[in-house]
């Protein structure tokens, strides 16, 4: 979540989940009940409260918490996405999935030290681009071999 000064356009707060030693980027666990999808997969709501993050300001990084409520509403038909194992595992298309283009709307708040913010509740924040769907990646791609020993064995067959 980035906050910018309206006049200068300078980013003055950057609330993120941080980067783990594993390389996992800006990704934090949230309660299982925080994400609710409709049975047809075309609507999804995330209602998350007080998740621990950091706020990177021009001066320092400080512990912070954020809360957000976002609703995604899919449009039209779901489309196949990704190329799965047909591309390198590092390729952006190294996944398979079915996704709806969507519209999303949300409200956000956060605190860091003595600073706190609240997004506009009148209109909420609206999406420039949004999508939702299901996907598989890596060792959980359909037909993927999950262990090196198995992979070696299969290559000998």
């Amino acid at each position: 979540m980035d906050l910018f000064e309206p006049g200068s356009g300078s980013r003055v707060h950057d609330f993120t989940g941080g980067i783990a030693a594993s390389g996992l980027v800006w990704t934090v666990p949230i309660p299982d009940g925080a994400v609710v999808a409709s049975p047809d997969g075309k609507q999804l709501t995330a209602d998350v409260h007080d998740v621990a993050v950091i706020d990177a300001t021009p001066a320092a990084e400080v512990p912070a918490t954020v809360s957000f409520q976002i609703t995604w509403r899919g449009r039209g038909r779901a489309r196949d996405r990704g190329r799965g194992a047909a591309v390198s595992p590092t390729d952006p298309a190294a996944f398979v999935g079915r996704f709806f283009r969507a519209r999303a709307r949300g409200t956000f708040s956060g605190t860091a030290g003595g600073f706190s913010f609240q997004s506009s509740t009148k209109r909420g924040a609206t999406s420039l681009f949004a999508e939702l769907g299901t996907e598989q990646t890596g060792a959980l791609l359909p037909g993927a071999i999950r262990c090196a020993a198995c992979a070696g064995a299969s290559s000998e067959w």
Partner: protein
Amino acid sequence: MLVVVLLLALAPAASAFDGTMPVPVPGSAHVFAPGPPALGLQGVDANPSSIGDFDGTVALAYLKGRAKDASGRRFRMSNDMRVMTGRYLAADGSAHVGSFAFI
């Protein structure tokens, strides 16, 4: 047979986060930016998940809006938000379930 049934009945339900974190998406950046190239994004065939070895539901949104701090000072707000919920593998290859937010 009875022992097997009892063990299955007593096994913890595999439906809640157990504290084991997932692995990142392979590659140097570990995250992609799906969306229309006209917006400077990587196209719709870019993976929206920030979790590797994943099987589940993903929602992504680039949102713009306005915010105020406690004193009434105004800001423009820009958020890349994603949520992922489903099955994943940890670094040791063990299987887990959980929900995550990309913030």
